[in-house]
């Protein structure tokens, strides 16, 4: 029982991260019908922003909650801006071309970020940027405290990470369903041309969607780093794909679906590697997802809409 609960804690901790990243995929798909394959790499940039900010503020030497907060919000802002820039320069010029074109650009942006970040640092810049392929490690932003209820180890990092992630998801839910911006977002997602005719600034809504999704990815990166502090330019690769799968699993384009999908994937992985062979972790977890998609092609919460490509 103890083991089962410990797996539950671990699975939730990874699952909420997948969910946060999956939200970015889902929102962009919702408004643009575009799969933003660079999203996993935005997550990576978020991790590096946090790393640079933390070093600049000397978090390693004297950690404090205030500094942690600045690093957290700072990275979210940096990534939000990055998301807007990617949309402005890589996707917007191609928006009215064939959908395949944007998909290819997305992969291009993804590779640009991955390999751009692996280049040797520019000399005389003051900070080692680009970071190069050698992994870096986050300093701990505050002291770790662990509790042991019923033999299950839970640390303050797990708790903070879980509640921050849930809080961010609720906030997003509020923005999408209760604010003007959310309403216009849903309008654009329904039919962007008509939304434009109704006086909604479609470009601004799309840029805002990218900013939101990217900021969530940065938040995910920093929450993940609590007990897994390794940062390297290729870290967004598998995590990005997993989060994408989580989004599809929940029904891509559907915000609660992405959350459930993320949690389901995190828990599936955790229990597979805890109770079955750990080398089969990803294999079995993904096989499970494929089966679910065979039964429900639109994903758990998605509604199936026939679509002309």
């Amino acid at each position: 029982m103890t083991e089962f609960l410990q797996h539950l804690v671990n699975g939730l901790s990874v699952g909420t991260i997948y969910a946060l990243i999956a939200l970015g995929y889902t929102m962009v798909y919702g408004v643009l019908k575009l799969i933003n394959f660079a999203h996993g790499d935005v997550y990576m940039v978020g991790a590096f922003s946090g790393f640079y900010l933390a070093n600049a503020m000397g978090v390693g030497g004297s950690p404090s909650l205030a500094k942690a907060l600045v690093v957290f919000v700072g990275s979210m802002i940096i990534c939000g801006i990055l998301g807007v820039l990617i949309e402005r320069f890589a996707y917007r010029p191609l928006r009215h071309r064939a959908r395949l074109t944007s998909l290819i650009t997305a992969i291009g942006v993804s590779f640009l970020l991955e390999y751009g970040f692996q280049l040797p640092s520019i000399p005389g810049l003051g900070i080692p940027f680009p970071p190069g392929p050698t992994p870096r490690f986050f300093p701990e932003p505050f002291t770790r405290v662990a509790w042991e209820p019923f033999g299950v180890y839970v640390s303050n990092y797990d708790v903070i990470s879980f509640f921050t992630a849930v809080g961010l998801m609720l906030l997003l839910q509020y923005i999408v369903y209760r604010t003007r911006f959310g309403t216009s977002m849903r309008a654009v997602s329904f039919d962007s041309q008509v939304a434009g005719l109704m006086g909604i600034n479609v470009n601004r809504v799309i840029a805002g969607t990218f900013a939101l999704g990217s900021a969530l990815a940065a938040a995910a990166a920093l929450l993940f780093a609590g007990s897994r502090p390794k940062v390297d330019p290729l870290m967004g690769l598998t995590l990005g794909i997993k989060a994408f799968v989580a989004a599809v699993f929940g029904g891509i384009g559907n915000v609660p679906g992405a959350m459930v999908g993320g949690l389901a994937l995190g828990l599936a992985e955790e229990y597979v590697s805890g109770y079955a062979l750990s080398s089969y972790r990803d294999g079995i977890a993904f096989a499970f997802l494929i089966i679910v998609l065979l039964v429900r092609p639109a994903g758990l919460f998605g509604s199936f809409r026939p679509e002309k490509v």
Partner: protein
Amino acid sequence: MRLTRTLALMAAVVAVAACQDKKQEAPAPAAPQAAAPAAGGAPAGDKLVFGHVASMTGNEATFGDSTDKGIKLAVDEANKAGGVKGKQLTVKTLDDQGKPEEAAVAATRLVTQDGATVLLGEVASSRSLAMAPIADSNKVPMITPTSTNPRVTKDGDKTRPYVFRVCFIDPFQGTVMAKFARENLKINNVAVLRDVGNDYSVGLANFFAAKFKDLGGTIVADESYKAGDQDFKAQLTAIKNKKIQAIYVPGYYTDVALIARQARELGIKVPLMGGDGWDSVKLYEIAKGALDGSYFSNHYSSEDPSPVIQGFVKKYKETYGSVPDALAVLGYDAANVAIDAMKRAKDLTGPSIRDAIEQTKGYQAVSGVINLDQDHNAVKSAVVLAIKNNEAHFAATVNP
């Protein structure tokens, strides 16, 4: 228009590739001896090039950095002493970022473009395995400082003619730790956590498990991870509830340090054990004390009082300002074995140097006396290091 250009480019690439194939294959059956200067890069003038393939960046960046420092120290000394057969040596280092495919590209470039006389590297077995066929087919001797996987010098049943190593191999290293755990630490139950994508880690885990069972111990769990994973808590939780006394983690330092931290976060207090892939100053920097009480097998200890080792440590400190790790020592040894063989060889072609390396017997290196066996492995003793206060200290020597 664009299509024609692409086609032309493709044709050119194919043509170049075909030419290179011909260059490598054509002379071999006719006159193997005559082929060597062309392939072995003898026409480099007064300079002899040591081609070093290393992970200067990437997940195991300190490995490449250390061997490079060791090799350069050896080469500088040899040059000051007049070089080899009147020629000066240079080291040309290419970075493979810790990727096997890049190691193969780097080795090919060093041999075909830079005219390397000898290839040195890689530290990691998976990368050396990518380089070995290139050394063989180009007839350029290759010495790996620390690749411990048996298959590096073996191609199926037969020994690779041009590939050598100056370290012991995994069966021995795995055995050492199994013996140490059973006999010195009196441990009965061990869990194994291996990196499934890494030849080195899988090899060590297998040899350790076999010997540990032989000695009457039990492997209670055998879990795995993949290099690049960041979350190991699922495996660790599964291990935790199995009444273990130690965990054997034969991985590389970045992963091991993260595993140690996450194990402590889950309340696992037993020692971790591992192999020479742990040896890096970064291990302690990342683990932040999580590895205290753990043990790993290694090639040497800087605390060993032997005058050869202390002399080298002093020299290295004067040059680089830090204590050498085992990778630096074996890089130095690998370069020196090559230099020693080149001095003894009748000329500086690949095949003659190869023959001279093969005859290396009783060579006094820093990491011990090197005798190459018929499989081109160095037969040497190993040391076990214990980690206390986030530093490694000498614990025991184990002989073959």
